[in-house]
């Protein structure tokens, strides 16, 4: 009874204009050429990652073309060969999988932790907020890459380690944004009404507060995936991320650095892929932000 009433109050407080708002946001997004381009590139990259086995002309690790060590790009092998005679195109295609997997999974972990902590801090306030804010500040004062390097070394570098350590260290941003939004939401009529009707705190936060902050969280997430992909490739580049022989963009670049004098072409293509991917996520994020919050536009 209490929840159904509060739900009615909830929708009422937004004046029933929600649908038109949403369709207006979609229209704004679709008008933004860069954002749509970003989205199309991301969809394409996701397809490449899913169908990597079919798309890659050769196996990324097992197909060794003996005698063609470090051969430059040709028509049959457009990206050339690496220092142990593997087809680079196939390795770069498989690298897409790791980049997107780490980018998306780590972001999901960070969103869950960040939104939970931010919502608790903002909703309850008081000493709970003080303690959690201190935690957020502490994490934000850590130089991220240094923390990641230490954690990866302690836990032993692997795919799981990479995803986990990035996820549990980058959530502070989400927490800060969500906390600020929840603090202002807390005093709004529909929350006050839900509380007055005897709704339980957990339920109010879950049903009424969190749905209202998801817009900012989605924008932040799409902007963060790009920087997470850069972090992952930096870790793999340093040999502290996903272990070889698994093909990762950062790992291939590490090979490229080692053989930069003899086989310069190794260093080129994985980097181009990183830039394209990060640009696509950043365009998507900027487009979403402008579409959801038109006042922010200069």
């Amino acid at each position, binding site marked *: 009874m209490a929840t159904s009433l509060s739900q009615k109050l909830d929708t009422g407080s937004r004046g029933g204009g929600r649908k038109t708002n949403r369709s207006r946001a979609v229209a704004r997004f679709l008008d933004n050429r860069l954002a749509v381009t970003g989205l199309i590139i991301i969809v394409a990259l996701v397809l490449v990652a899913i169908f990597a086995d079919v798309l890659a002309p050769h196996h990324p690790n097992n197909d060794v073309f003996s005698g063609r060590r470090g051969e430059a790009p040709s028509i049959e092998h457009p990206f050339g060969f690496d220092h142990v005679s593997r087809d680079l195109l196939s390795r770069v295609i498989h690298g897409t999988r790791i980049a997107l997997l780490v980018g998306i999974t780590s972001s999901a972990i960070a969103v869950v932790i960040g939104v939970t902590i931010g919502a608790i801090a903002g909703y309850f306030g008081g000493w709970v907020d003080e303690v959690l804010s201190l935690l957020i500040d502490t994490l934000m004062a850590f130089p991220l890459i240094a923390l990641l*390097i230490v954690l990866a070394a302690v836990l032993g570098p692997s795919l799981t380690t990479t995803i986990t350590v990035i996820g549990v260290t980058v959530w502070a941003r989400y927490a800060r944004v969500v906390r600020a939004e929840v603090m202002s939401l807390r005093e709004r009529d529909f929350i006050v009404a839900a509380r007055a009707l005897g709704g339980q705190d957990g339920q109010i936060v879950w049903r009424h507060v969190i749905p209202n902050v998801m817009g900012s969280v989605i924008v932040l997430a799409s902007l963060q995936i790009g920087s997470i992909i850069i972090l992952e490739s930096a870790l793999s580049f340093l040999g502290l991320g996903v272990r070889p022989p698994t093909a990762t963009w950062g790992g291939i670049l590490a090979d490229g650095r080692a053989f930069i004098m003899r086989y310069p072409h190794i260093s080129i293509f994985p980097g181009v892929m990183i830039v394209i991917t990060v640009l696509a996520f950043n365009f998507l994020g900027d487009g979403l932000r402008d579409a959801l919050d038109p006042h922010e536009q200069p």
Partner: protein
Amino acid sequence: MVKNYFAFRVLKGLLVIFLISIVTFVIMRLMPGDPVYLLLGEGNIQITQEQIDAIHAKWGLDRPYHEQYLVWARNLFVGDFGESIIRMGVPIRQMIFEALPVTALLNVFAIAIALIVSIPFGIWAALKRNSIIDYAASVGSALGIATPNFWMALILILVFSVRLRWTPVFGLRSWQGYILPVVVLATEQMAVITRVMRGAVLEVLPQDYVRTARGKGLAAQRVNWRHVLSNALLPVITVVGFRIAFLLSGTIVVETVFALPGIGRLFTDSVIRLDYQVVQSLVVIFAFLVVVVNLLTDMLYAVIDPRIRIA
């Protein structure tokens, strides 16, 4: 009021540094492997349990963890970082002072170049909105932000060291060794600062006081300098402060690519060598820097912007 605010901020900063030192200490103790074995080379030298105990005792590794922490924290407080376990008895302070000039030089040049280029460029782009300059600034920033610094470093090495042979590939045998790393670090900063500067000017331009100034018939130059610039620089200060605080993290990867003997390289090498003492001291120093720079940024902000001083 202002004094109280800053006293509060300083206290909170100290608390953050304290928490970071504890977290770092705990993480480092979780590291697998006994440094004593690394020191002696595993299996190469026969040592007795007594000898291991003696080494543990010398470094205080036999004491309970909380005692180890307290000793370390007290020494840190008076600026004594202890000695490296792996590089037999070399004081960490000496290791840091040896590496510091390289990193400092890289970062001072990078941030100076970035500011000199990107502040005027950002302003110019905003004043000439939708011109070629503006598009160049936007495209440049977007690309600069999306390019990992270590890949940019590799490409520059390919072009200028391998092909053209203008600069050395790795290391610092001559001053030319600084050119590429500085360019990489500066580009990273430029991308962000140009974007922020452009955005800040665009936000100030339609404000009432700018229109009033123009309406009064003031020359466009004068309005731009006095009214637009002084207000638009505020958000840039925050970003620059933030960037300076985290500059060291940028150098970690770049110093590794170019094999430069700076703080970043010292850090990654120490992590790989399991040199606890060096890693934990460096992390606390990094964090201390972040807290201090953030504090200074806020203070500078309060000095420049009277609205904050009063509030």
